[in-house]
């Protein structure tokens, strides 16, 4: 019943809203000129170039419009594989209080709907019998956080002090004190951050020495024949599915374009090292031929001067 009404509202949206939204999303130059100064640097939004001050609001627009159908679309687009990736991500980190250790403070950035946060709490509780480890879910988008809060209440994580939701910009993380977090995770989020290097620096700031930075994001597929198939799929099928299932083609057009624009595995690993993290080996692990990758970094115990 719920899904049907969701579909109906999505279909209505598709009929009436698609054209104006298209105009709104893709005419960045004129609409942005009023409130941005001339010195404002430019960045990319999908394949477009927009003013840096505008990107955040555009991304916010995308995620506000997909918040409700976010999970359904993830399942449809990835054939459910995104659940395996997320499970693997959390299981490899294995968060929770270890014998002789302390409960952890976890910061899940861009974790609006709580996918990763719930999994981490489950891992702590079920594997380590640890009910003290806590997660702060930070997201720049209030709509996504409300979706996450709704789910946390439904699944019984709330009310408790194990999980809290905060509106927070990944680039600054203003209300998170320095050296306060054991584990920083960002899953399919860093792609949408305007200044990625700033976000990495903030991650470095809030982590305790010896803390772990873990990031899961779409990456480059190899070998080339598979990549060709993947590109076809992502540029022709995903926007279409976005239109049919979520009633929102443009947001999913942005999704595939932003995936294409994200740096390669090696480049992003280098950015992580540049932000001051230690990485092991090449610094990343590929999932499903590199459709997604997991990067991990460690904040060194002695910070280099």
């Amino acid at each position, binding site marked *: 019943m719920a899904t049907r009404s969701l579909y109906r509202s999505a279909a209505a949206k598709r009929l009436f809203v698609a054209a104006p939204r298209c105009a709104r999303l893709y005419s960045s130059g004129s609409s942005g000129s009023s409130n941005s100064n001339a010195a404002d640097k430019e960045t990319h939004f999908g394949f477009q170039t927009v003013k840096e001050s505008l990107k955040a609001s555009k991304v916010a627009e995308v995620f506000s419009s997909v918040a409700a159908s976010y999970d359904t679309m993830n399942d449809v687009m990835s054939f459910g594989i995104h659940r395996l990736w997320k499970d693997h991500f959390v299981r490899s980190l294995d968060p929770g209080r270890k014998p002789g250790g302390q409960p952890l403070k976890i910061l899940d950035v861009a974790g609006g709907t709580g996918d990763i946060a719930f999994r981490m709490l489950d891992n702590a509780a079920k594997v380590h019998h640890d009910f003290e480890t806590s997660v702060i879910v930070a997201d720049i988008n209030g709509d996504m956080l409300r979706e996450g809060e709704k789910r946390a209440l439904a699944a019984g994580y709330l009310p408790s002090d194990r999980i809290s939701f905060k509106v927070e910009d990944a680039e600054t993380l203003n209300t998170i004190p320095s050296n306060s977090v054991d584990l920083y995770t960002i899953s399919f989020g860093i792609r949408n951050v305007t200044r990625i290097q700033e976000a990495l620096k903030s991650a470095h700031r809030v982590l305790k020495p010896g803390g*772990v930075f873990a990031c899961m994001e779409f990456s480059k597929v190899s070998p080339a024949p598979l990549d060709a198939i993947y590109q076809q799929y992502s540029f022709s099928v995903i926007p279409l599915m976005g239109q049919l299932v979520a009633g929102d083609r443009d947001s999913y057009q942005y999704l595939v374009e932003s995936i294409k624009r994200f740096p*390669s595995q090696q480049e992003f690993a280098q950015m992580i090292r540049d932000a001051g993290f230690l990485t092991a080996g090449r610094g990343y*692990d590929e999932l499903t031929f590199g459709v997604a990758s997991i990067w991990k970094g460690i904040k060194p115990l002695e910070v280099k001067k």
Partner: protein
Amino acid sequence: MRLNLLGQLLSHLSPRDSITSFTRHVIFAASSPTNVSTMPPRLRLPHFSAAPVRTFTSHQHPPAPAYTPLESTLLSTALQHVPAHGFTTTSLHLALRAHNYPTLTSSAFFPRGAFSLILFHLHQQRSTLKDRIVFPSSSASTSSSDKLRSLIKTRLQGNVETGVAERWGDALAVMSLAENIPESLRELARLADELVYLSGDTAVDTTWYAQRAGVAGVYAATELFMTTDKSSDYEATWEFLDRRVDDMEKLGSVTEGVGSYLAFTAAAAGNVLRSKNVKFF
């Protein structure tokens, strides 16, 4: 005037100039990734990774260290825990604690878990092998199979000296997991290459492959035998190794014999056909 024009034309056509301008153009195109990334996807050239890949090996250019100093320290400490805790994440966690890192960092430092520890041990043993065994310079008389025998023995004794020999069966089990097989085989190939090189065999003909395959086979068989060997000081293993090296020698001479027999027979058959005036090529 005309000469001047000709000169201009020549300078325009001069091959050197055209080449430099061409290369400059190419270099410019390659060194401006921002330009490339703003292009629509269909126009973009295939992206090649910038990491330099060395397609040659040379003993004059030692390879870059595979592990950072911190990784080496952590993994060496973890290896000291192997006799007690085996090749497990427990050993890794103990090493992290000893160096004040939280155990949460385990998956970030060692993405492949226990297998990372096994690979480190294999890498250590392989890279220090050349220092642990030195053949006297007058060893020209020593046959290469005798050298191989003592090389393999020294390599396997490395497992005994570090105390991991008792746990090596577990390590082989981890190495034989599907996800770890490619890297395990690669490491075996590297070891075989090292062993053959240290034995003084620098041949680059077709025996290159046969020799390495043979040595890898002997090493792997002996290693496997060693995991079940209960004799004192692994006497049975060394006897097993002697027999395998002898086998390899015999096999080598048999293949050689079979090869020359087949070549002779083919040539003789050809001659018979020729004598019968059959045109066969």
